Protein backbone atom coordinates (compact mmCIF):
# COMPACT_ATOMS: atom_id res chain seq x y z
CA UNK A 1 0.00 0.00 0.00
CA UNK A 2 1.35 3.40 -1.01
CA UNK A 3 0.24 6.16 1.37
CA UNK A 4 -0.81 9.52 -0.06
CA UNK A 5 0.87 12.25 2.02
CA UNK A 6 -1.91 14.78 1.27
CA UNK A 7 -4.33 12.32 2.85
CA UNK A 8 -2.18 12.20 6.01
CA UNK A 9 -2.38 15.99 6.32
CA UNK A 10 -6.19 15.92 6.07
CA UNK A 11 -6.42 13.06 8.57
CA UNK A 12 -4.11 14.86 11.03
CA UNK A 13 -6.33 17.95 10.85
CA UNK A 14 -9.60 16.01 11.14
CA UNK A 15 -8.37 13.90 14.04
CA UNK A 16 -7.36 16.89 16.17
CA UNK A 17 -10.84 18.43 15.85
CA UNK A 18 -12.66 15.08 16.26
CA UNK A 19 -10.66 14.24 19.39
CA UNK A 20 -11.57 17.59 20.97
CA UNK A 21 -15.30 17.13 20.32
CA UNK A 22 -16.24 13.46 20.61
CA UNK A 23 -15.47 11.52 23.77
CA UNK A 24 -14.65 7.82 23.12
CA UNK A 25 -17.42 5.31 23.95
CA UNK A 26 -15.37 3.54 26.64
CA UNK A 27 -15.01 6.82 28.58
CA UNK A 28 -18.76 7.53 28.32
CA UNK A 29 -19.42 4.04 29.66
CA UNK A 30 -16.91 4.74 32.41
CA UNK A 31 -19.01 7.75 33.47
CA UNK A 32 -22.15 5.54 33.61
CA UNK A 33 -20.33 3.12 35.91
CA UNK A 34 -19.08 5.90 38.20
CA UNK A 35 -22.57 7.47 38.37
CA UNK A 36 -23.98 4.11 39.56
CA UNK A 37 -21.32 3.64 42.23
CA UNK A 38 -20.95 7.22 43.53
CA UNK A 39 -22.38 7.73 47.03
CA UNK A 40 -21.50 11.41 47.64
CA UNK A 41 -24.21 13.95 46.77
CA UNK A 42 -21.63 16.50 45.62
CA UNK A 43 -19.82 13.78 43.68
CA UNK A 44 -23.02 12.80 41.89
CA UNK A 45 -23.80 16.43 41.03
CA UNK A 46 -20.31 16.99 39.62
CA UNK A 47 -20.42 13.77 37.55
CA UNK A 48 -23.88 14.83 36.32
CA UNK A 49 -22.46 18.14 35.08
CA UNK A 50 -19.66 16.31 33.25
CA UNK A 51 -22.16 14.00 31.53
CA UNK A 52 -24.36 16.98 30.64
CA UNK A 53 -21.29 18.68 29.13
CA UNK A 54 -20.63 15.69 26.85
CA UNK A 55 -24.20 16.00 25.53
CA UNK A 56 -23.90 19.81 25.10
CA UNK A 57 -20.62 19.39 23.19
CA UNK A 58 -22.27 16.89 20.83
CA UNK A 59 -25.40 18.99 20.38
CA UNK A 60 -23.56 22.29 19.80
CA UNK A 61 -20.69 20.58 17.93
CA UNK A 62 -18.32 22.30 20.33
CA UNK A 63 -15.12 21.28 22.07
CA UNK A 64 -15.57 19.25 25.26
CA UNK A 65 -12.90 21.21 27.11
CA UNK A 66 -11.21 24.52 26.33
CA UNK A 67 -7.78 22.95 26.76
CA UNK A 68 -6.64 21.97 23.29
CA UNK A 69 -3.68 20.31 24.97
CA UNK A 70 -0.32 19.29 23.65
CA UNK A 71 -1.05 17.51 20.36
CA UNK A 72 0.28 13.95 20.27
CA UNK A 73 0.12 11.70 17.20
CA UNK A 74 0.78 7.97 17.62
CA UNK A 75 1.55 6.29 14.32
CA UNK A 76 1.46 2.53 13.78
CA UNK A 77 2.80 1.29 10.49
CA UNK A 78 1.77 -2.23 9.46
CA UNK A 79 3.39 -4.60 6.98
CA UNK A 80 3.75 -3.75 3.28
CA UNK A 81 3.11 -0.05 3.81
CA UNK A 82 5.16 2.32 1.69
CA UNK A 83 5.49 5.98 2.62
CA UNK A 84 7.93 8.87 2.80
CA UNK A 85 8.46 9.09 6.57
CA UNK A 86 9.90 12.59 6.67
CA UNK A 87 7.07 13.85 4.47
CA UNK A 88 4.56 12.17 6.77
CA UNK A 89 5.93 14.05 9.78
CA UNK A 90 5.70 17.35 7.92
CA UNK A 91 2.14 16.53 6.81
CA UNK A 92 1.07 15.84 10.40
CA UNK A 93 2.50 19.17 11.47
CA UNK A 94 0.68 20.98 8.67
CA UNK A 95 -2.58 19.21 9.55
CA UNK A 96 -2.21 20.19 13.20
CA UNK A 97 -1.53 23.82 12.27
CA UNK A 98 -4.45 23.91 9.85
CA UNK A 99 -6.87 22.54 12.47
CA UNK A 100 -5.76 25.36 14.78
CA UNK A 101 -6.20 28.12 12.18
CA UNK A 102 -9.20 26.83 10.24
CA UNK A 103 -11.50 25.71 13.09
CA UNK A 104 -10.15 27.95 14.92
CA UNK A 105 -8.65 26.40 18.08
CA UNK A 106 -6.73 27.95 20.92
CA UNK A 107 -3.01 27.34 20.43
CA UNK A 108 -1.86 26.08 23.81
CA UNK A 109 1.78 25.63 22.81
CA UNK A 110 4.58 28.07 23.71
CA UNK A 111 8.37 28.19 23.58
CA UNK A 112 9.50 26.83 26.98
CA UNK A 113 11.86 29.72 27.73
CA UNK A 114 10.50 32.80 25.92
CA UNK A 115 6.86 31.60 26.41
CA UNK A 116 6.11 32.88 22.88
CA UNK A 117 2.96 31.36 21.35
CA UNK A 118 3.16 30.93 17.56
CA UNK A 119 -0.66 30.46 17.50
CA UNK A 120 -0.20 27.24 15.50
CA UNK A 121 -0.32 24.53 18.23
CA UNK A 122 3.18 23.68 16.98
CA UNK A 123 6.69 24.41 18.21
CA UNK A 124 10.02 22.70 18.76
CA UNK A 125 9.23 18.98 19.06
CA UNK A 126 5.47 19.63 19.00
CA UNK A 127 3.25 18.02 17.77
CA UNK A 128 4.70 14.98 19.49
CA UNK A 129 4.91 12.19 16.91
CA UNK A 130 5.50 8.61 18.10
CA UNK A 131 6.16 6.04 15.41
CA UNK A 132 5.84 2.28 15.88
CA UNK A 133 5.35 -0.78 13.70
CA UNK A 134 2.93 -3.69 13.92
CA UNK A 135 1.87 -6.89 12.14
CA UNK A 136 -1.27 -5.74 10.37
CA UNK A 137 -0.93 -5.99 6.59
CA UNK A 138 -1.37 -2.81 4.53
CA UNK A 139 -2.57 -0.79 7.50
CA UNK A 140 -1.54 2.63 8.78
CA UNK A 141 -3.12 3.77 12.04
CA UNK A 142 -2.94 7.33 13.32
CA UNK A 143 -4.13 8.04 16.84
CA UNK A 144 -4.44 11.65 18.02
CA UNK A 145 -4.37 12.64 21.68
CA UNK A 146 -4.81 16.28 22.77
CA UNK A 147 -3.17 15.88 26.18
CA UNK A 148 -4.60 18.36 28.66
CA UNK A 149 -2.15 20.26 30.82
CA UNK A 150 -3.98 20.17 34.15
CA UNK A 151 -3.50 16.43 34.29
CA UNK A 152 -0.14 16.45 32.47
CA UNK A 153 1.18 18.58 35.34
CA UNK A 154 0.38 15.49 37.44
CA UNK A 155 3.49 13.71 36.14
CA UNK A 156 6.13 12.18 38.37
CA UNK A 157 9.16 9.93 38.15
CA UNK A 158 10.99 8.23 40.98
CA UNK A 159 14.09 6.13 40.45
CA UNK A 160 13.41 3.75 43.33
CA UNK A 161 16.00 1.08 44.17
CA UNK A 162 15.50 -2.72 44.39
CA UNK A 163 15.57 -2.63 48.23
CA UNK A 164 12.46 -0.38 48.16
CA UNK A 165 10.47 -3.28 46.67
CA UNK A 166 7.12 -3.22 44.90
CA UNK A 167 5.50 -1.80 48.05
CA UNK A 168 7.27 1.49 47.44
CA UNK A 169 5.99 1.50 43.86
CA UNK A 170 2.39 1.24 45.09
CA UNK A 171 3.00 3.84 47.81
CA UNK A 172 4.41 6.26 45.26
CA UNK A 173 1.27 6.00 43.12
CA UNK A 174 -1.15 6.46 46.04
CA UNK A 175 0.87 9.40 47.40
CA UNK A 176 0.90 11.13 44.02
CA UNK A 177 -2.88 10.70 43.66
CA UNK A 178 -3.28 12.31 47.12
CA UNK A 179 -0.84 15.10 46.23
CA UNK A 180 -2.72 15.91 43.01
CA UNK A 181 -6.13 16.01 44.70
CA UNK A 182 -8.59 17.96 42.55
CA UNK A 183 -5.96 19.73 40.46
CA UNK A 184 -5.82 17.00 37.79
CA UNK A 185 -9.57 17.14 37.08
CA UNK A 186 -10.75 13.82 38.57
CA UNK A 187 -12.20 11.30 37.84
CA UNK A 188 -8.91 10.43 36.18
CA UNK A 189 -7.13 7.55 34.55
CA UNK A 190 -3.93 7.15 36.54
CA UNK A 191 -1.18 5.96 34.18
CA UNK A 192 1.66 4.09 35.87
CA UNK A 193 4.93 3.02 34.29
CA UNK A 194 7.02 0.41 36.08
CA UNK A 195 10.54 -0.48 34.93
CA UNK A 196 12.59 0.43 31.87
CA UNK A 197 14.98 3.37 31.81
CA UNK A 198 13.81 6.75 33.15
CA UNK A 199 12.53 7.94 29.78
CA UNK A 200 10.88 4.61 28.93
CA UNK A 201 9.24 4.53 32.37
CA UNK A 202 7.70 7.98 31.83
CA UNK A 203 6.54 7.00 28.35
CA UNK A 204 4.94 3.80 29.71
CA UNK A 205 2.97 5.95 32.15
CA UNK A 206 1.65 8.04 29.25
CA UNK A 207 0.74 4.92 27.25
CA UNK A 208 -1.09 3.61 30.34
CA UNK A 209 -2.91 6.91 30.94
CA UNK A 210 -4.20 7.05 27.38
CA UNK A 211 -5.18 3.38 27.00
CA UNK A 212 -8.92 2.69 26.53
CA UNK A 213 -10.95 1.80 29.62
CA UNK A 214 -11.56 -1.94 29.72
CA UNK A 215 -8.07 -2.75 28.45
CA UNK A 216 -5.70 -4.62 30.73
CA UNK A 217 -1.95 -4.69 31.25
CA UNK A 218 -0.54 -7.52 29.13
CA UNK A 219 1.84 -8.53 31.92
CA UNK A 220 0.18 -10.65 34.62
CA UNK A 221 2.00 -8.98 37.54
CA UNK A 222 1.30 -5.54 36.12
CA UNK A 223 -2.39 -6.43 35.78
CA UNK A 224 -2.53 -7.51 39.42
CA UNK A 225 -1.08 -4.21 40.65
CA UNK A 226 -3.41 -2.36 38.30
CA UNK A 227 -6.45 -4.02 39.97
CA UNK A 228 -5.14 -3.36 43.49
CA UNK A 229 -4.36 0.30 42.86
CA UNK A 230 -7.70 0.88 41.11
CA UNK A 231 -9.51 -0.16 44.30
CA UNK A 232 -7.09 1.73 46.55
CA UNK A 233 -7.28 5.19 44.98
CA UNK A 234 -11.08 5.21 45.08
CA UNK A 235 -11.02 4.68 48.85
CA UNK A 236 -9.25 8.01 49.44
CA UNK A 237 -12.44 10.09 49.23
CA UNK A 238 -10.98 12.67 46.83
CA UNK A 239 -13.85 12.28 44.37
CA UNK A 240 -14.88 14.16 41.21
CA UNK A 241 -13.01 17.50 40.97
CA UNK A 242 -11.52 16.77 44.41
CA UNK A 243 -14.76 17.81 46.11
CA UNK A 244 -15.29 14.46 47.85
CA UNK A 245 -16.66 11.09 46.79
CA UNK A 246 -15.64 7.64 45.55
CA UNK A 247 -14.98 8.51 41.92
CA UNK A 248 -11.36 9.64 42.12
CA UNK A 249 -10.38 7.52 39.12
CA UNK A 250 -12.05 5.55 36.37
CA UNK A 251 -9.14 3.12 36.66
CA UNK A 252 -5.42 2.88 37.33
CA UNK A 253 -3.58 1.54 34.27
CA UNK A 254 -0.13 -0.03 34.51
CA UNK A 255 2.44 -0.66 31.76
CA UNK A 256 5.70 -2.45 32.44
CA UNK A 257 9.12 -2.90 30.83
CA UNK A 258 12.13 -4.88 31.94
CA UNK A 259 14.63 -2.89 33.94
CA UNK A 260 18.22 -3.06 35.26
CA UNK A 261 19.27 -5.16 38.28
CA UNK A 262 20.06 -1.98 40.22
CA UNK A 263 16.88 -0.12 39.27
CA UNK A 264 13.20 0.00 40.32
CA UNK A 265 11.74 3.01 38.48
CA UNK A 266 8.13 4.12 38.73
CA UNK A 267 6.37 6.91 36.87
CA UNK A 268 2.91 8.45 37.07
CA UNK A 269 1.13 10.32 34.28
CA UNK A 270 -2.46 11.33 34.80
CA UNK A 271 -5.29 11.68 32.29
CA UNK A 272 -8.20 13.93 33.26
CA UNK A 273 -11.87 12.95 32.84
CA UNK A 274 -11.92 14.58 29.41
CA UNK A 275 -9.98 11.53 28.21
CA UNK A 276 -9.99 12.51 24.58
CA UNK A 277 -8.51 10.51 21.74
CA UNK A 278 -9.42 9.82 18.12
CA UNK A 279 -7.95 7.51 15.54
CA UNK A 280 -8.01 6.80 11.84
CA UNK A 281 -7.08 3.54 10.16
CA UNK A 282 -5.93 3.79 6.57
CA UNK A 283 -6.11 0.62 4.44
CA UNK A 284 -6.43 0.00 0.67
CA UNK A 285 -10.22 0.06 1.31
CA UNK A 286 -10.18 3.66 2.59
CA UNK A 287 -10.11 5.57 5.90
CA UNK A 288 -12.07 4.50 8.99
CA UNK A 289 -12.35 6.97 11.86
CA UNK A 290 -12.87 5.86 15.45
Amino acid sequence: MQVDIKEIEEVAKTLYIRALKLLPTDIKQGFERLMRDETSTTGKTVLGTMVENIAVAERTKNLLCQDTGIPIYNIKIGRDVSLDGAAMKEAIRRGCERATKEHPLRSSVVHPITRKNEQTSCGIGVPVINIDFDERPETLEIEMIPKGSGSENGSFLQMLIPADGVGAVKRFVVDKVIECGGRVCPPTIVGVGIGGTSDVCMHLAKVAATRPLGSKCADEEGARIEAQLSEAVNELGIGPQGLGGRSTSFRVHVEVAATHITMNPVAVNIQCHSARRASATITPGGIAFA
Partner: protein
Amino acid sequence: MTHHVLNMPIDEAQARALKLGDTVTLEKTLFGIRDATLIAMFDKDRRTRFDLKGHAVIHTAPNVKKVDTRPGNNSGYEPVCIGTTTSMRMERFTKQLMQREGVRIIIGKGGMGPATLDALKEFGGVYLAIVGGAAALETTWIEEIEDVDMDDLHPESLWKFRIKGFGPLLVTMDSHGGSMHAEVNAGAAAKRADVLAKIGGL
Protein backbone atom coordinates in the same frame (compact mmCIF):
# COMPACT_ATOMS: atom_id res chain seq x y z
CA MET B 1 -26.85 25.97 52.02
CA THR B 2 -28.29 29.00 50.26
CA HIS B 3 -28.40 29.81 46.56
CA HIS B 4 -27.33 33.35 45.69
CA VAL B 5 -27.79 35.22 42.41
CA LEU B 6 -25.17 37.95 42.20
CA ASN B 7 -25.26 40.88 39.80
CA MET B 8 -21.60 41.71 39.42
CA PRO B 9 -19.84 43.70 40.85
CA ILE B 10 -20.55 43.09 44.56
CA ASP B 11 -19.41 44.71 47.82
CA GLU B 12 -17.58 43.28 50.81
CA ALA B 13 -20.75 42.51 52.81
CA GLN B 14 -22.17 40.49 49.90
CA ALA B 15 -18.91 38.55 49.62
CA ARG B 16 -18.77 37.81 53.33
CA ALA B 17 -22.40 36.59 53.29
CA LEU B 18 -21.34 33.66 51.08
CA LYS B 19 -20.66 30.51 53.10
CA LEU B 20 -19.02 27.17 52.40
CA GLY B 21 -21.47 24.88 50.60
CA ASP B 22 -23.64 27.74 49.25
CA THR B 23 -24.25 27.88 45.52
CA VAL B 24 -23.92 30.98 43.37
CA THR B 25 -25.08 32.08 39.93
CA LEU B 26 -23.38 35.16 38.50
CA GLU B 27 -24.95 37.73 36.18
CA LYS B 28 -23.69 40.57 33.98
CA THR B 29 -19.89 40.73 34.02
CA LEU B 30 -16.99 38.28 34.47
CA PHE B 31 -13.27 38.75 33.79
CA GLY B 32 -10.92 36.02 32.52
CA ILE B 33 -7.29 35.81 33.65
CA ARG B 34 -4.52 33.23 33.67
CA ASP B 35 -0.84 32.57 34.41
CA ALA B 36 0.67 34.99 31.87
CA THR B 37 -1.87 37.73 32.67
CA LEU B 38 -1.06 37.60 36.37
CA ILE B 39 2.70 37.40 35.81
CA ALA B 40 2.43 40.54 33.64
CA MET B 41 0.21 42.39 36.13
CA PHE B 42 2.09 41.63 39.31
CA ASP B 43 5.64 40.51 38.45
CA LYS B 44 6.04 43.11 35.67
CA ASP B 45 3.64 45.68 37.16
CA ARG B 46 1.48 46.05 34.06
CA ARG B 47 -1.76 47.90 34.70
CA THR B 48 -5.07 47.09 33.08
CA ARG B 49 -7.51 49.71 31.84
CA PHE B 50 -10.36 47.59 33.31
CA ASP B 51 -11.78 48.34 36.75
CA LEU B 52 -11.88 44.97 38.53
CA LYS B 53 -13.19 46.37 41.82
CA GLY B 54 -15.83 44.08 43.36
CA HIS B 55 -15.70 41.76 40.35
CA ALA B 56 -15.22 38.05 39.75
CA VAL B 57 -12.31 36.63 37.79
CA ILE B 58 -12.18 33.16 36.27
CA HIS B 59 -9.00 31.18 35.55
CA THR B 60 -9.31 30.72 31.81
CA ALA B 61 -7.81 31.14 28.35
CA PRO B 62 -10.59 30.80 25.81
CA ASN B 63 -10.86 29.44 22.27
CA VAL B 64 -12.11 32.40 20.21
CA LYS B 65 -12.65 33.48 16.62
CA LYS B 66 -12.04 36.91 15.14
CA VAL B 67 -15.04 39.07 14.21
CA ASP B 68 -15.61 42.74 13.46
CA THR B 69 -16.12 44.97 16.50
CA ARG B 70 -19.67 46.25 16.97
CA PRO B 71 -21.70 48.00 19.71
CA GLY B 72 -21.41 45.78 22.81
CA ASN B 73 -18.37 43.98 21.41
CA ASN B 74 -15.19 46.01 21.55
CA SER B 75 -12.96 42.91 21.63
CA GLY B 76 -13.25 41.76 18.05
CA TYR B 77 -13.71 38.19 19.25
CA GLU B 78 -16.54 35.71 19.61
CA PRO B 79 -16.46 32.68 21.90
CA VAL B 80 -15.71 29.24 20.41
CA CYS B 81 -15.15 27.35 23.63
CA ILE B 82 -14.55 28.85 27.05
CA GLY B 83 -13.63 26.74 30.05
CA THR B 84 -11.61 26.80 33.24
CA THR B 85 -8.04 25.90 34.11
CA THR B 86 -6.41 24.58 37.30
CA SER B 87 -6.27 27.39 39.88
CA MET B 88 -3.43 26.31 42.12
CA ARG B 89 -0.74 27.61 39.73
CA MET B 90 -2.04 31.14 40.37
CA GLU B 91 -1.90 30.83 44.19
CA ARG B 92 0.75 33.47 44.80
CA PHE B 93 -1.23 36.18 42.97
CA THR B 94 -4.53 36.04 44.91
CA LYS B 95 -3.54 38.52 47.59
CA GLN B 96 -2.39 41.18 45.12
CA LEU B 97 -5.44 40.57 42.94
CA MET B 98 -7.68 41.36 45.91
CA GLN B 99 -5.56 44.07 47.53
CA ARG B 100 -4.50 46.07 44.47
CA GLU B 101 -7.38 45.38 42.07
CA GLY B 102 -10.26 44.86 44.54
CA VAL B 103 -11.37 41.48 43.15
CA ARG B 104 -13.97 39.72 45.36
CA ILE B 105 -14.56 36.36 43.67
CA ILE B 106 -12.15 33.86 42.14
CA ILE B 107 -13.60 31.08 40.00
CA GLY B 108 -11.53 28.06 39.11
CA LYS B 109 -11.06 24.35 39.43
CA GLY B 110 -9.16 22.18 41.86
CA GLY B 111 -9.16 24.74 44.69
CA MET B 112 -6.42 26.98 46.08
CA GLY B 113 -4.16 26.97 49.13
CA PRO B 114 -3.53 28.71 52.45
CA ALA B 115 -2.32 32.02 50.93
CA THR B 116 -5.62 32.38 49.07
CA LEU B 117 -7.64 31.40 52.14
CA ASP B 118 -5.85 34.11 54.16
CA ALA B 119 -6.51 36.73 51.47
CA LEU B 120 -10.21 35.80 51.24
CA LYS B 121 -10.45 36.29 54.99
CA GLU B 122 -8.48 39.54 55.11
CA PHE B 123 -10.15 41.35 52.21
CA GLY B 124 -13.53 39.60 52.05
CA GLY B 125 -13.96 37.23 49.13
CA VAL B 126 -14.74 33.68 48.03
CA TYR B 127 -13.43 30.96 45.76
CA LEU B 128 -16.11 29.32 43.63
CA ALA B 129 -15.50 25.86 42.19
CA ILE B 130 -16.66 25.23 38.66
CA VAL B 131 -16.60 21.78 37.05
CA GLY B 132 -13.36 21.69 35.09
CA GLY B 133 -13.52 20.18 31.63
CA ALA B 134 -17.20 21.13 31.26
CA ALA B 135 -16.36 23.92 28.82
CA ALA B 136 -19.05 23.26 26.20
CA LEU B 137 -21.63 23.85 28.93
CA GLU B 138 -19.77 26.85 30.37
CA THR B 139 -19.66 28.47 26.93
CA THR B 140 -23.49 28.53 26.84
CA TRP B 141 -23.41 30.84 29.88
CA ILE B 142 -21.36 33.48 28.02
CA GLU B 143 -23.25 35.97 25.84
CA GLU B 144 -20.44 38.08 24.48
CA ILE B 145 -16.75 38.85 24.75
CA GLU B 146 -17.30 42.53 25.50
CA ASP B 147 -13.68 43.61 25.60
CA VAL B 148 -10.09 42.44 25.89
CA ASP B 149 -6.92 43.96 27.36
CA MET B 150 -3.26 42.84 27.11
CA ASP B 151 -4.08 40.85 23.98
CA ASP B 152 -0.37 40.57 23.14
CA LEU B 153 -0.54 37.71 25.68
CA HIS B 154 -3.22 35.94 23.62
CA PRO B 155 -4.86 33.59 24.54
CA GLU B 156 -3.81 34.54 28.09
CA SER B 157 -5.22 38.05 27.66
CA LEU B 158 -7.40 39.82 30.21
CA TRP B 159 -10.93 39.06 28.98
CA LYS B 160 -14.18 40.83 29.79
CA PHE B 161 -17.21 38.58 29.31
CA ARG B 162 -20.92 39.43 29.41
CA ILE B 163 -22.58 36.49 31.13
CA LYS B 164 -26.10 35.17 31.69
CA GLY B 165 -26.92 32.58 34.36
CA PHE B 166 -23.27 31.71 34.97
CA GLY B 167 -23.62 28.77 37.35
CA PRO B 168 -24.57 27.23 39.68
CA LEU B 169 -21.07 27.31 41.16
CA LEU B 170 -20.13 25.96 44.59
CA VAL B 171 -18.56 28.06 47.37
CA THR B 172 -15.60 25.86 48.34
CA MET B 173 -13.48 28.54 50.10
CA ASP B 174 -15.03 31.41 52.05
CA SER B 175 -14.02 34.49 54.04
CA HIS B 176 -14.51 32.66 57.34
CA GLY B 177 -11.55 30.30 56.95
CA GLY B 178 -13.51 27.39 55.47
CA SER B 179 -12.02 25.30 52.65
CA MET B 180 -13.70 22.20 51.25
CA HIS B 181 -10.44 21.41 49.44
CA ALA B 182 -8.47 21.38 52.68
CA GLU B 183 -11.15 19.15 54.23
CA VAL B 184 -11.04 16.61 51.39
CA ASN B 185 -7.22 16.63 51.34
CA ALA B 186 -7.08 16.05 55.11
CA GLY B 187 -9.57 13.21 54.72
CA ALA B 188 -7.42 11.53 52.06
CA ALA B 189 -4.28 11.92 54.19
CA ALA B 190 -6.11 10.31 57.13
CA LYS B 191 -7.17 7.30 55.01
CA ARG B 192 -3.71 6.83 53.46
CA ALA B 193 -2.25 4.34 55.96
CA ASP B 194 -5.29 2.02 55.86
CA VAL B 195 -5.46 2.14 52.07
CA LEU B 196 -1.74 1.34 51.74
CA ALA B 197 -1.88 -1.45 54.35
CA LYS B 198 -4.51 -3.30 52.30
CA ILE B 199 -2.30 -3.45 49.20
CA GLY B 200 1.06 -4.06 50.86
CA GLY B 201 2.18 -0.52 50.21
CA LEU B 202 3.25 0.55 53.70
